[in-house]
């Protein structure tokens, strides 16, 4: 399972490195969304608002949607899924590999956008650094959940529009917990309870993914 996971993750990341979609399309989109968030708040409030953590996660959510879609689009060429199935790869390993690749991509985007939040929305640097571990765990949970939901919509009619409808409600608790732990880091208050919720969600999504991904791949 681990070997398969490693192989799949390496394959997905290699495709990303060669295509550079994350660098030239997704990250500029994220940066633009962050700037627009500042504009929506208004110049007077953009630098002083406590909405920074929430806006950061909202932008990350859009970035995650793009990356989840991308993760399955690269396998949409005719015969790719069938040939992966005939290779007899362990579905749990495939799930873990795709989640890992997506997680690395989201972590990279998260680091860039976190720096953007500090720069544009004037979120405290120290607080952002304290929040960093919780941000990484939240993004890992998002990638595990996103991999599952991506597999659910892969190849379906209108997959690109269906994906947000299915994924956003599932991401809502992660968004809330992530935002609260980020805000708690900024105000030096109770951080651990929100961390715990995100960690439980991560374990739950990885567990469900390992158990059920095979069913989705079977079809």
């Amino acid at each position, binding site marked *: 399972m681990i070997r398969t996971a490693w192989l799949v993750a390496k394959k997905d990341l290699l495709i990303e490195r060669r295509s550079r979609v994350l660098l030239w399309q997704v990250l500029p989109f994220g940066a633009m969304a962050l700037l627009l968030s500042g504009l929506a708040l208004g110049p007077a409030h953009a630098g002083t608002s406590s909405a920074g953590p929430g806006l950061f996660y909202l932008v990350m959510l859009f970035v995650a949607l793009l990356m989840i879609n991308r993760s399955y689009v690269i396998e949409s060429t005719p015969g790719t899924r069938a040939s992966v199935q005939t290779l007899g790869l362990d579905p749990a390993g495939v799930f873990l590999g795709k989640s890992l690749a997506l997680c690395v991509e989201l972590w990279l985007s998260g680091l860039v956008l976190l720096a953007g939040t500090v720069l544009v929305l004037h979120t405290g640097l120290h607080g952002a650094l304290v929040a960093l571990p919780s941000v990484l765990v939240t993004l890992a949970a998002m990638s595990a959940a996103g991999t*599952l939901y991506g597999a659910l919509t892969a190849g379906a009619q209108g997959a690109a529009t269906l994906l947000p409808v*299915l994924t956003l409600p*599932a991401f809502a608790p992660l968004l809330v917990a992530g935002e609260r732990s980020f805000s708690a880091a900024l105000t030096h208050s109770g951080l651990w309870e929100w961390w715990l919720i995100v960690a439980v969600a991560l374990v739950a999504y990885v567990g469900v993914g390992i158990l059920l991904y095979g*069913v989705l791949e079977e*079809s």
Partner: protein
Amino acid sequence: MIKQLSQRLLGPVTLLCLALTFWLGLWVTPPDRIQGNLVRLLYVHPAVAWVALYVSFGTATIASILYLWKRTRSFTMDRIAHCAMEVSVVFIVLTLITGSIWGRPTWGVWWAWDARLTSTAILGVLAVGYLALRRANDDSTLRARRSAVFAILSAINVPIIHFSVQWWKTLHQGATVFTSNRQLLVHGSMAWTLLLSFVGFTLLFFWLLRARYRLEVLRESTQQMMLDEALLLRQREGVM
């Protein structure tokens, strides 16, 4: 014989229970000391929410698990899950509407950013998403598997809704029928009316589920007949 009788009686018994609930709720039970006549809405809202969250979503989830489990895998389970989810959407919307009507005079707003309200609305979007997912897949096996997995994933939200009033302590009140020591907090005609409303709306769910299931079976058989006819027509064209 018993099965046929229970099927025949389901509709009339449901209507009788609901009619009694409305009669008791509107005319027999007294107004509340604090809420006045507004309390009468509580003979509808908790029962509708009970059906939306636990009965219908629970039925859809159990049927989905049974579909995924190889020993019990059949399209009957898939059909039950689908029909239960459709009925669930109706009950979730009713829960939100009745809650909102109660919330306006009590809380002063139609909608509040309360943990239970928000998580219930999210469950509604998930239920609609389930139906959208079904429409997006033409292959019946693929559709059944994907929607079963999605129903199980969505069910994670139900315990979140249930415990939201304890975890977040926002506007929505906690358990008001029983205390944490299982002691009844509602008494007399109010308690009986409340109990009857739970029975009535649960029966209504099964009645609607049965009707929707029969409709789905008819729809599938009509589709099959049309397909057979089209195939026969093409065969004849080939012979000619």
